[in-house]
């Protein structure tokens, strides 16, 4: 079955289209104050990737931007501050309605809760 002559240009070809996904209602989280849509079950990293956000942390020494790298919880590159709590691995952390994700600076200790 031929679905499209240029499969790479087929607008229906999306991850959700491929998996036949009919997600439950989406919801909003924020990233540095601006709204980002998340789907139920997505990790925070996945929701940010879907919004074309690839970095949400700056490094301790050189202040360089970083985001998800290994995607499975082993590299710790994706650390984010969520609702004021730093050092959460965004690739493992499910997005929840209203979550406020903010760029984590350095080791995140500046924002440690008492």
């Amino acid at each position, binding site marked *: 079955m031929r679905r499209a002559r240029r499969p790479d240009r087929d607008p229906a070809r999306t*991850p959700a289209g491929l*998996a036949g996904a009919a997600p439950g209602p989406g919801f909003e989280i924020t990233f540095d104050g601006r709204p980002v849509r998340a789907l*139920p*079950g997505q990790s925070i990293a996945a929701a940010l990737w879907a919004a074309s956000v690839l970095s949400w942390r700056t490094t301790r020494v050189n202040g360089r931007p970083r985001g*998800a790298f290994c995607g*499975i919880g082993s590299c710790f590159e994706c650390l984010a501050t969520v609702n004021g709590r730093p050092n959460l691995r965004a*690739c493992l952390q499910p997005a929840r309605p209203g979550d406020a994700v903010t760029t984590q600076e350095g080791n995140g200790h500046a924002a440690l809760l008492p």
Partner: protein
Amino acid sequence: MPPSSPDPAEVAVVGAGPAGLAAAVTAADAGLDVLLLDAADAPGGQYYRAPAPGLGAARPEALHHGWGTFTALTARLARHRDTGRLRHLTGHQVWAVTRTGEGHTLHALTGPDGRDGVTLRARRLVLATGAVERQLPFPGWTLPGVVGAAGAQAMLKSGLVLPGRRVVVAGSGPLLQAVALSLARAGARVPALVEAAGYGAYARAPQVLAANPDRLAEGVRHRAGLARYGVRMLAHRAVTAVHGTERVEGVTVSRLDPAWRPVPGTGRRIDCDALAVGHGLVPQLDLALGLGCATRTDADGSAVLERDEDLRTTASGVWAAGETGGIGGVRIALAEGELAALSVIADARGGRPPARAAGLRRRRRRMRGFAALMGTVHRPGPGWTEWLAPDTEVCRCEEVTAGAIRTAVDEMGAGDSRTAKLLTRAGMGWCQGRTCGFAIRALAGPPGPDATPGRRPLACPVPLTTLARTARSEDA
């Protein structure tokens, strides 16, 4: 400590990927009482990683091959869970296993934020903790938009997302073909698949190929798929630079000589907004090393667990299945999980493994033959370190550059990775060298004779309160 059941389980399986699932249900089929622990919230491991239920995927099988095998395993899992013979503990990250008396005590982190601790006991242990992706650093690899190839696959399978619209796939190993194909089928434009080795090398082992027709067929299927999506296959090449300031805008691909040294003047730019990169996988051995299991160096240069033909490690009462014993793919993992369980059952029941075990051993040997070929073909050539510029970060967590490590080796006399680590902090950050360990060993040499490869006392960061509570309960 929250109470754990007073009697130790007959067997605990750590990891619910293909290997651990097969081991757990086979053991439960024989009537053993089984504990199955996994850090993830759903069974399947890396291969059978499924979209989160909330995403309502009607065709999860579109992201996998052999989905039927997986649903059959999870159906058996559910049956044993219902009878109470098997306890499947999801969201349990095991951070240490200690030998206690006749068996083992497992320490795991649980709870919504992974801050609670539990201890569990089992007489026998099957380690099926799988692998993580092997990364070789190169200039620009820390820029946002550069992601692990297997990592991109994992994010696609679980979260139905892509890292970009135009994604170059690079590194080495057959997994890259699966990744490039998944990304393309999900809508990404994949201008090139950049492979550091060459597939011609497989042709030099026709007997191994003939014995593994399924792998040959898979290769043919992947190549046809990639051609259909217009993915160019570039062999004997590597990404030697990434362009962009805040995120990836393009990459430079250079030709490599047989030792993987970049050939000067061959660089060509490819525009893209993401790079999915990986050079195969490395077994995840923290728990095994903590238990004192012996390792050996596999065909691809990684440390893997030493095992006998029934998959016993050198530590008493500890078996290992799947990628912990060497990278080989999902079919080996399934066969080894079952084989390890047959040996565990025989151990528990005081008999010998059934005749079925002999067939599994034969299949395993045949498939391990292919895995060894794969490991040899894609083993990083020694010249890859010439990709590195002095300011290329090798350790991403601690931001330690190749130049700093070379200074520690050349000027401060660090003759092994342990000393280089102490002098530079490379490998001492959050990930504890999981990402950079292979590269640091290549630059500084393997750890000295007294050091176990990559030994870490804890398999993941553990809150101090949990450690303190554990210490108290073990003193009691």
